């Protein structure tokens, strides 16, 4: 565990020192993955299915706000829809407009979840989203996740009917609209997934905010199980053909990913929980303080063993230096003067002037 905590601290340190570079790179990769997947799954507009365009747009997303990824993803999908059929693009535009005007304005901070949800759905690990959003977000995140599910099913409906739509003539405009609208509204599977994801987000959020030990772990497991149960109940009621194996494996993956998130966001030591009670003029306070798991900054001990041949004296000098994050103990000049009488022996050279008491204990004596 100590090794993991050290690794976490090292990662945090690297991130905090290089945030300016890491964040744009992450945004670039998310944009690249999103646009790449859109092109590979839709790809009706051949001009847009070009690596150079994807790279340029991803590069733009890297220094623009996070919302730019959502905007460009929407533009890319709309252009592909337009290439397939103008009526399909019209339906897509209406759906995006509804989502943006009615729902996303309540939670603009989580707007990236609208892209991440379809992305993970395509990668066959959709169950990660509600659990992760419940841990990191608020109950309002349920709206964003639901919007992501709607976008995913809209795109699935379009790609599923693409062959039929492309064979239809211009005179069948209404039939095309009906095909997409019916495909979306009659999709019971979408409704079940929306219900299960929304319930999961809220349940995970409520449990992880509780003042109970291991609340995050309980929230993760409960969230994954509730998600699974709602999906299976939905399958029984609406016959949505949910693959039980996929759902179980997906839930296990969701738990694993959520535990990683927990490790980075909420790593506490419940064995050292303190409960204190005090009062002031107006209130009684019952406070539960749970300490965070941390490790002290690792220090390294560097030994320098040099063979000395100075005049008649012959011996070895062992210099032990302790290095820390910000501490550098340097050997003062002429330090060995007066110690040459230690002929043939080994000496430890430590600058006592620059050492504090707590540091001295960590030194190794080699006399």
């Amino acid at each position, binding site marked *: 565990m100590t090794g993991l905590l050290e690794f976490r601290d090292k990662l945090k340190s690297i991130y905090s020192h290089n945030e300016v570079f890491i964040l744009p790179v992450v945004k670039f990769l998310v944009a690249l993955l999103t646009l790449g997947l859109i092109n590979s799954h839709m790809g009706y507009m051949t001009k847009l299915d070009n690596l150079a365009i994807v790279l340029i747009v991803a590069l733009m997303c890297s220094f623009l706000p996070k919302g730019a990824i959502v905007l460009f993803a929407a533009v890319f999908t709309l252009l592909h829809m337009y290439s397939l059929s103008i009526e399909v693009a*019209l339906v897509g535009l209406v759906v995006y*407009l509804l989502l943006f005007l009615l729902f996303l*304005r309540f939670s603009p901070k989580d707007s990236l979840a609208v892209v991440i949800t379809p992305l993970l759905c395509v990668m066959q690990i959709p169950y990660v989203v509600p659990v992760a959003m419940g841990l990191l977000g608020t109950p309002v995140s349920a709206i964003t996740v639901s919007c992501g599910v709607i976008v995913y099913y809209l795109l699935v409906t379009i790609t599923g009917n693409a062959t039929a739509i492309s064979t239809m003539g211009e005179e069948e405009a209404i039939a095309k*609209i009906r095909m997409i609208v019916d495909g979306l509204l009659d999709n019971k599977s979408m409704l079940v997934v929306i219900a299960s994801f929304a319930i999961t987000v809220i349940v995970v959020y409520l449990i992880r905010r509780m003042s109970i030990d291991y609340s995050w772990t309980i929230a993760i497991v409960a969230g994954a199980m509730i998600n699974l149960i709602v999906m299976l109940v939905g399958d029984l009621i609406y016959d949505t053909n949910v693959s039980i194996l996929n759902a179980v494996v997906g839930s296990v993956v969701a738990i694993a990913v959520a535990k990683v998130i927990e490790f980075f966001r909420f790593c506490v030591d419940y064995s050292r929980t303190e409960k204190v009670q005090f009062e002031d003029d107006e209130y009684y306070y019952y406070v539960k303080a749970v300490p965070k798991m941390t490790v002290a900054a690792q220090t390294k001990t560097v030994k320098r063993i040099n063979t000395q041949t100075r005049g008649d004296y012959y011996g070895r000098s062992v210099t032990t230096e302790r290095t820390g994050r910000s501490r550098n103990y340097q050997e003062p000049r002429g330090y060995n003067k007066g110690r040459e009488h230690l002929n043939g022996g080994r000496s430890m050279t430590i600058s006592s002037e620059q050492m504090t008491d707590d540091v001295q204990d960590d030194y190794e004596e080699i006399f």
Partner: protein
Amino acid sequence: MLNEERVILMTKMASYEGNEGKKNMAIGKFFRSDYIGIQVLKSVLSVTICYAVCFALYIFYDFEVFMQDLYKMDLIAFAVQVLKYYGIAVVAYGLLSYVVYSWRYAKAKKSLKCYYNNLKKLYSLYQEQ
């Protein structure tokens, strides 16, 4: 000379001003009724646009049937029905917006109160020096 407590406080406050505080300060400029009123108005505008778009899509979806029935149907009754649904949508969404933005205003004010307390504390630290 550097005062560690003051530097920590200023760092926290600067971080707040740069992130969450920016939004909260924008909210804090308004009176409660003004802020909620503007947001509810925006919501009504949004729901109006969405209703118009959905109505257009509905007509387009059932265009042939609609055109066939156009001369048979009672247009005034149809318009009343459309307006009734519009009213329900506006009231429901407006109410939801009212609840959400009231909560947000209260939250922002509470957060700003904490920020102003820190400002006072910072001022007193300067006075002590």
